[in-house]
């Protein structure tokens, strides 16, 4: 790799090139000094002959001092410019003239790259990070079309076509990082620094051929140094709206380009990308891009992938653990036990608010059960700011037990709920779950009627609109999880009978204490428990039942972020341990994670897990 910075050279005003720059059906006549050929080769075409060009831009040397002037058929001229400024102004004028009267295509302020016939479009205003993102894709092998303007037309049957892409030297706003965007081993890169940024002459140049857009990912980037990675999936309507916001020739298009925007949005999956460093995009956006372009994906799957990768990044940057508050004294565990009809238990990690409202809403909604319930709260971060308050809840809540358990954290800590429970039946819930009024009494009645049950009892999860429900998980891999939310109409009627389901999210489940099979004690961190525990119940002669009355609401959002460490490695490790314990094949799981994370990373993770389980590390 080599970088060279050009100094302006003395030029003869006689040696000028007369060329054209074309964008779709629009063209601009240009003139520039022959000594600057290396900045124009591959970007301009032979001059389209016309008596008096309607649109033109001239870049000329003023004298032998290395200063330049730019004049154009429209807009003010600029003079006394260094070469970097002159080229930047020249291409700005050219871009404007190419699109300002374009009527047969939508001109988008966007970067674009191609991958095996698919299109990755990056619309955005100047300085939003689209060039940086396009160069990151290029570094990973994609073909750069442009970092500035594309045009989209429609076929007679309304299909969107990437009509053209503006060729121009790449202009990076940030000077410091230009060399970081070169491909491995890339040679003969030229670089010009000016007040407009860094202009790069890249080997291979840019290229484009018009083609119908069959597969497309649209990324609306927003770069801010130090920003966390946020991937926000966009609906088709939101995408079309954002496309219109970055349309450069709205006034020229019928209906303001609504038809173009809708057609393009309808062919693409789209997301808003906030990022602060291209390192965040490794194993996140590259995987998401590969998945999105490989095969059509439902909006739900796409949203799940975005969420999974954003969570992964935020947690990756948090490892090893976010700064911890000063440790405080760990309150003593409640020694008194409360053997009652049902123990409601939860493990929590710094979620005092969740615990408080979950328990108080249960008590408030079910006053008749005051003496029938024991509450067990497992504090999985004892000594935190929440601990004392969690312990003090016992001063006001009858039947409340506080148990600090901080030797390790993770999903298997819910075993401790069953270990500490004193009642014959245990309802284990997340510390941010609400249960509909009356459901607990019905659950107790159900358990009283079947006191020797070996079943795992669950219920429909109700979404925040209080209408939609998910009664179970369909057993298939998606976005790094075994199981996909699904709804069975048998769960619609809360008075309906129980029915068997393959698996369900574990925000709420009930089991006879003595029948609880337990999570594998080797589980660490979060993830991997759904499906595993259901199969374990089945292998012991039980079933997983959906009780339609046992409806629960789960708080998914964490605006303040998650505090605990959550890693792909933990999740995959738990799945692997669980599947191995139960004698289930791991091939499908390994293939899924290889596709999701890339074969190399997945292979490394599985190799590490096998070595650990074989006692090699």
């Amino acid at each position, binding site marked *: 790799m080599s970088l060279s910075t050009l100094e302006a050279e003395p030029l003869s005003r006689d040696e000028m090139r007369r060329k054209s720059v074309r964008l779709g059906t629009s063209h601009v006549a240009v003139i520039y000094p022959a000594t600057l050929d290396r900045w124009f080769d591959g970007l301009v075409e032979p001059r389209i002959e016309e008596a008096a060009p309607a649109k033109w831009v001239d870049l000329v040397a003023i004298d032998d001092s290395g200063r330049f002037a730019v004049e154009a058929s429209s807009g003010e001229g600029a003079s006394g410019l260094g070469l970097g400024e002159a080229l930047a102004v020249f291409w700005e004028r050219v871009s404007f003239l190419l699109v300002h009267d374009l009527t047969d295509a939508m001109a988008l302020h966007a970067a674009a790259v191609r991958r095996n016939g698919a299109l990755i479009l990056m619309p955005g205003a100047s300085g939003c990070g689209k060039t940086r993102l396009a160069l990151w894709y290029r570094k990973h092998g994609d073909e750069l079309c442009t970092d500035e303007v594309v045009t989209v037309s429609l076929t007679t049957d309304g299909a969107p076509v990437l009509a053209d892409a503006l060729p121009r030297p790449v202009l990076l706003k940030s000077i410091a990082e230009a060399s970081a965007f070169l491909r491995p081993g890339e040679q003969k890169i030229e670089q010009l620094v000016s007040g407009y940024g860094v202009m790069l002459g890249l080997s291979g140049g840019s290229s484009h051929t018009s083609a119908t857009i069959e597969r497309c990912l649209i990324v609306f980037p927003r770069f801010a140094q130090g920003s966390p990675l946020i991937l926000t999936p966009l*609906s*088709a*309507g*939101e995408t*079309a*709206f954002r496309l*219109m*916001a970055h349309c450069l020739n*709205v*006034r020229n298009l019928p*209906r*303001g*380009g*609504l*038809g173009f*925007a*809708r057609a393009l*949005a*309808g062919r693409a999956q789209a997301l808003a990308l906030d990022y602060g460093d291209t390192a965040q995009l490794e194993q996140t956006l590259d995987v998401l891009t590969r998945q999105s372009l490989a095969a059509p994906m439902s909006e739900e799957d796409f949203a799940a992938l975005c969420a999974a990768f954003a969570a992964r990044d935020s947690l990756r940057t948090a490892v090893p653990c976010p700064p911890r508050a000063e440790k405080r004294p760990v309150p003593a565990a409640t020694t008194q036990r409360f053997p009652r009809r049902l123990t409601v238990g939860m493990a929590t990690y710094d979620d005092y608010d969740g615990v408080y409202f979950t328990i108080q809403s249960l008590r408030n909604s079910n006053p008749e059960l005051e003496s029938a319930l024991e509450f067990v709260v497992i504090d999985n971060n004892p000594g935190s700011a929440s601990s004392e308050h969690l312990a003090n809840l016992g001063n006001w809540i009858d039947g409340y037990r506080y148990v600090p358990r901080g030797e390790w954290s993770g999903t298997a800590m819910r075993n401790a709920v069953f270990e500490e429970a004193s009642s014959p039946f245990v309802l284990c819930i997340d510390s941010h779950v609400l249960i509909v009024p009356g459901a607990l009494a019905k659950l107790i009645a159900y358990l009283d009627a079947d006191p020797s049950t070996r079943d795992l009892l669950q219920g429909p999860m109700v979404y925040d*609109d*209080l*209408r939609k429900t998910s009664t179970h998980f369909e057993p298939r891999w998606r976005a790094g999880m075994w199981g996909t939310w699904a709804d069975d109409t048998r769960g619609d009627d809360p008075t309906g009978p129980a029915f068997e389901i393959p698996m369900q999210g574990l925000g709420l489940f009930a089991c006879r204490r003595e029948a609880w099979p337990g999570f594998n004690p080797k589980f660490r961190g979060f993830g991997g428990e759904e499906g595993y525990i259901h199969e374990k119940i089945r292998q012991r002669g039980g079933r997983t039942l959906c009780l339609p009355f046992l409806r629960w609401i789960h708080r998914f959002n964490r605006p303040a972020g998650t505090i605990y460490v959550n890693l792909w490695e933990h999740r995959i490790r738990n799945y692997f341990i669980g599947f191995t314990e139960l004698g289930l094949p791991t091939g499908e799981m390994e293939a899924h994670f290889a596709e999701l994370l890339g074969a190399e990373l997945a292979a490394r993770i599985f190799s590490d897990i096998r070595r650990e389980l074989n006692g090699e590390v």
Partner: protein
Amino acid sequence: MSDNAVDDLVPRQVSGVETEIVGKEVLLYHPGQTRAVYLNPTAALIWGLCDGNRPVREIVRLIGESYPEAGNSLADEVLTTLKQLRENGVLVNA
């Protein structure tokens, strides 16, 4: 303006505003202002009810029937949406 006065207003879509329906969402384009407006499904429903005949109170009632769980905050949300549509120049009072 009093609440009663607001309730009696009859909002009407500005003529010439282009509409594009995208699933349950709607995009509007105001040619005179070269401005696009995005309506989420709820706002799209409100927009559709602004036919120049229904007063605001009727629109609030109809939206309330569609979202019975929304409760008392619904009227404020409808009024806010109508205000935003007016501010974007796509809605006027009949």
